[in-house]
């Protein structure tokens, strides 16, 4: 890589040619403030419209101030990131942005985590000298995401993740001038758009214009009701991220502290979605082997590859974009919903309580899980299998409300029988994890041999699309993995052409899988946080005494006592689902 010489803030530097002033400065430890800029370097996603002007710098010999995010370094360039001219301009820019921003920071869902608020503090803004018109746009409430575009700063970070990373195309900048907002087509509600509720727009939003539906109050009400038995389940990716909310290092594993925090909040049973992840592997793995078996016996109607169906954003995506392929994905419900079905049927029966008296709460790294839990097919007489789905951030909010000192909590265990899980379930939280977990079990069931090495490192990583062939004792099994719906689209289009040769494909909507989910603590574009969560997931797996789903003793008991066999009669009714053509759900009004 060719190096060139530049000077930033009187510091002579040798930097790579072709990069921006912003990147060169940040690499040298000089933090130029930004607002519209958003980068996820681990998945090569960048938003830099150069529109907000927060990152302006002075370049000697150039008349105007230049946006650092959109200006390339050049040989001999002399840059000042904090000259008086720059500081004044930056402040004016910020004051102008703030002049049309609601000042309800006290009760804003983004308060304390808002990049605009941070900038106002960092730049010492104490009054807004410009008084003018304030935008008044309706609030758009969907089952998972709230749009409050009066707070929008037109950074267009949401638009980039929605269109480039997810290729969902729900959001676009519309109108012009003062009326400009980011909105779905024809400014309809998000729920009527092709939105998958993945929530990556919420993760990307620097302010409170996009946020998740907050259900903490409903959960507290349920816990306060003596007639209700409140059961909680926690997804794999939550335990490697929750600590960040309490100032712990990214990648800290807080499984035990989380269990004890939930007990102190007052949940009656502390269970683990990981248990249901093991159950998912039993069902989905069996489904895969059945399809492979039929295929090798010459059944022309069998659908291969099987597609995973754990990710609710992904399910919404294929229902909207691939309605002709609804019989291809696995019919297995997601772990969240399997847990709900087991809790409200098996557990409620075991405890001798009525379904209506049990409240199931899930803690998810996800925003789309809120939508999933409210799907009609996951309800019985209007009573949902999972009543409330909270994000990792909402759990942190609860822990703070209950005055719990998270860092000093003792390490406690989950309750049984739905709290025991294997390493295979833990890795559901990272891209490639579901398929690795399935491979561990499917290998043993297919070959009848014991798997000596359970780590399939060829399935791990952060490449958007990955392919690997696993040797099932002489039978090659071709596996595809995609994270990000843009990458899923690439694989799906291959499958549609009919010559992909895959046996199984795993898809996760969010960058890195659930660890980068939209319900996780905000990473503000720092991808190292996602990398550290990923390492933690595999560390947690390696430390588990049992690492194959079918060896989970409580899973074995569940089949013995209740389910019978995987993909059997009860499973079919309670653990499997079907999909709907949602391609025509966008109706034009008027």
């Amino acid at each position, binding site marked *: 890589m060719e190096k060139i010489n530049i000077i930033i803030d009187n510091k002579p530097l040798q930097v790579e040619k072709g990069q921006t002033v912003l990147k060169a400065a940040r690499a040298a430890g000089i933090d130029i403030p930004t607002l519209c800029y958003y980068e996820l370097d681990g998945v090569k996603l960048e938003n830099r419209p150069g529109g907000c002007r927060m990152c302006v710098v002075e370049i000697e010999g150039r008349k105007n101030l230049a946006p650092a995010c959109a200006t390339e370094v050049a040989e001999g360039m002399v840059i000042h990131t904090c000259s008086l001219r720059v500081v004044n301009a930056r402040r004016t820019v910020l004051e102008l942005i703030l002049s049309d921003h609601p000042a309800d920071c006290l009760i804003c869902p983004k308060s304390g985590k808002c990049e605009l608020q941070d900038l106002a503090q960092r730049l010492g803004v104490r009054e807004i000298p410009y008084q003018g018109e304030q935008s008044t746009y309706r609030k758009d409430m969907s089952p998972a995401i709230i749009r409050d575009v009066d707070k929008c700063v037109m950074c267009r970070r949401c638009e980039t993740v929605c*269109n480039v990373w997810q290729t*969902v*195309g*729900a*959001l*676009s*900048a*519309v*109108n*012009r001038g003062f009326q400009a907002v980011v*909105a*779905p*087509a*024809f*400014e309809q509600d998000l729920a009527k*758009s*092709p939105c998958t509720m993945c929530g990556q727009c919420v993760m990307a939003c620097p302010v409170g214009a996009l946020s998740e539906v907050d259900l903490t109050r409903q959960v507290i009400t349920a816990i306060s009701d003596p007639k209700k038995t409140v059961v909680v389940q926690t997804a794999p990716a939550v335990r490697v991220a929750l600590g960040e909310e309490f100032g712990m290092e990214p990648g800290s594993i807080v499984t035990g502290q989380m269990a004890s925090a939930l007990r102190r909040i007052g949940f009656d049973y502390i269970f683990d979605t990981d248990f249901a992840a093991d159950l998912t592997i039993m069902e989905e793995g069996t489904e895969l082997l059945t399809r492979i078996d039929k295929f090798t016996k010459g059944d022309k109607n069998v659908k291969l590859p099987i597609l995973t169906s754990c990710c609710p954003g992904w399910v919404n995506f294929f229902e909207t974009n691939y309605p002709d392929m609804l019989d291809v994905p696995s019919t297995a419900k997601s772990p969240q919903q399997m847990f709900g079905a087991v809790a409200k049927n098996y557990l409620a029966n075991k405890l001798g309580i009525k379904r209506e008296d049990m409240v199931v709460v899930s803690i998810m790294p996800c925003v789309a899980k809120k939508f999933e839990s409210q799907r009609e097919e996951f309800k019985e007489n209007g009573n949902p299998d999972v009543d409330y789905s909270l994000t990792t951030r909402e759990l942190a909010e609860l822990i703070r409300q209950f005055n719990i000192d998270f860092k000093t909590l003792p390490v406690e265990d989950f309750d049984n029988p739905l709290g025991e899980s294997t390493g295979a379930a833990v890795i559901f939280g990272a891209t490639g994890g579901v398929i690795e977990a399935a491979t561990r079990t499917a290998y043993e069931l297919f070959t009848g041999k014991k798997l000596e090495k359970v780590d399939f490192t060829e399935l791990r990583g952060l490449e958007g699309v990955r392919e690997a062939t696993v040797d099932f004792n002489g039978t090659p099994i071709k596996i595809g993995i995609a994270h990000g719906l843009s990458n899923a689209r690439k694989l799906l289009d291959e499958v549609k052409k009919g010559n992909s040769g895959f046996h199984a494909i795993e898809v996760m909507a969010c960058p890195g899988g659930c660890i980068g989910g939209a319900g996780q603590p905000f990473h503000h574009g720092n991808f190292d946080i996602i990398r550290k969560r990923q390492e933690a997931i595999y560390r947690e797996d390696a430390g588990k005494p049992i690492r194959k789903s079918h060896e989970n003793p409580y899973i074995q008991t569940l089949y013995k006592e209740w389910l019978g066999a995987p993909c059997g009669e009860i499973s079919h009714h309670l653990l499997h689902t079907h999909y709907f053509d949602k*391609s*025509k759900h*966008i*109706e*034009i009004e008027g």
Partner: protein
Amino acid sequence: MAKVKLSESKINKIKEICASFGNKPGEAINVLHKVQGEFGYLPAEVQEVIAQELNVSVAQIYGIVTFYSFFTMTPKGEFPISVCMGTACYVRGAEKVLDEFKRELKIGVGQTTPDGKFSLNCLRCVGACGLAPVVLIGEKVYGRLTPDGVKDILNEYRS
């Protein structure tokens, strides 16, 4: 994606226009321009078809339609009224004339009367500054107009 209510022949016409620009997303503005020339306006259903043909999201097409003032989602009236708001017309009272049209027709700028007869728009300078203020109705030019004259002119078309 949407429940398209367009006739088969109209859909084919749109597809034909998209194809004439190679179905390239980068040609969206040109496509919209030509389609509006064909239909007079760009209703939601039409945008849906264009989005599908160019393989971009409807939201993005809608973004373009709402960004450029040339594009419109409301059909023009049978008699489109354009009030010149150029400098010469403006200083000679074009705004008052415009207000009178709004009052008489009970519509705002960019809107069409419910009976589909009149639509109201502004433009910048038609090169007839000597006649300021100037109003166009269809192709016909009206010069030196005062608010008092608005009603009489409209009556020419109302019968």
